């Protein structure tokens, strides 16, 4: 049985995750949600979630921040090939460079509209 393709949204804002959900549903993917890095790692470790095609990641979150989560994913033997797109208010050039050096595939600065988000998701998935 073919697993439905999934996208994981990691953001402490339930409103942002709702906005992302509406975009992901347009693309007919399932959306998994995590409100912080630790919860996201727990979701990644579940066997039924092996078909996660993309992670949408906020930067500023309680506990493990987005950059630390990104580094953890990119250093993981199993998860490192999952593309990660930052979705964040962090727009400083220095921070964007840090994210790129840590292995981020794409970057979307908040605020964004749904069309922009869909376009960037499709870019990430196509490149993968």
């Amino acid at each position, binding site marked *: 049985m073919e697993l439905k393709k999934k996208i994981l949204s990691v953001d402490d804002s*339930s*409103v942002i995750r*709702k906005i992302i959900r509406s975009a992901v549903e347009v693309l007919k993917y399932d959306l998994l949600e995590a409100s912080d890095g630790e919860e996201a790692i727990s979701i990644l470790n579940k066997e039924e979630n092996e078909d996660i095609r993309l992670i949408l990641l906020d930067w*500023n979150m309680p506990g493990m921040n987005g950059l630390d989560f990104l580094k953890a994913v990119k250093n993981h033997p199993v998860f490192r090939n999952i593309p990660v797109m930052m979705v964040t208010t*962090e727009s400083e050039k220095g921070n964007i460079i840090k994210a790129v050096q840590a292995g981020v595939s794409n970057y979307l600065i*908040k*605020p964004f509209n749904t069309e922009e988000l869909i376009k960037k998701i499709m870019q990430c998935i196509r490149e993968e």
Partner: protein
Amino acid sequence: MSEGIKLSKNGNDDSDAAIPGFYFSNSVKDVIHTTMGIEPNEIKPFSDGYDNVDEQITGFLNLTGDLNMMITLGMSRKTAAAFVVYMTGVQLAEAKDEDMCDGIAEIINMVAGQIKTQAVGRGYHLKVLTPFVAVGEKCRIVYKSKVENMTKRFRIGNLDFMLKVFYYHL
């Protein structure tokens, strides 16, 4: 960096201010337009400083660094619920209190992000601290009379909301 006026006194035509008033206005309008697809109109707050926007939900956020300020975004529950509907597409009846608070926190966070970016262009580096939201009936923001402050009022349809900026020296 010189001391002196850091915020605009008279609204927007004050390019001498550290961050001119129209930067704040444009940040709010851009965030609202991008996330909700609607453009708020800026209207004058009441001239005597009294406003009758019932601030039942107010987002607060501090920016610190080369300048130090607190910004607040206050509105009625009805306006906050409308924001959630516009942002997420949920039905009005589904807009829960936690979503309203979360939505206002996100909006003020995005506004602060835009202000921070524009401040860099004027040579000021700012750090955005964690937003938080106060909820209550007939909340009033009370501040020391000598704190430099600015109020901006916006309207979408018949829904008003207020941005307030309080600059402080450390």
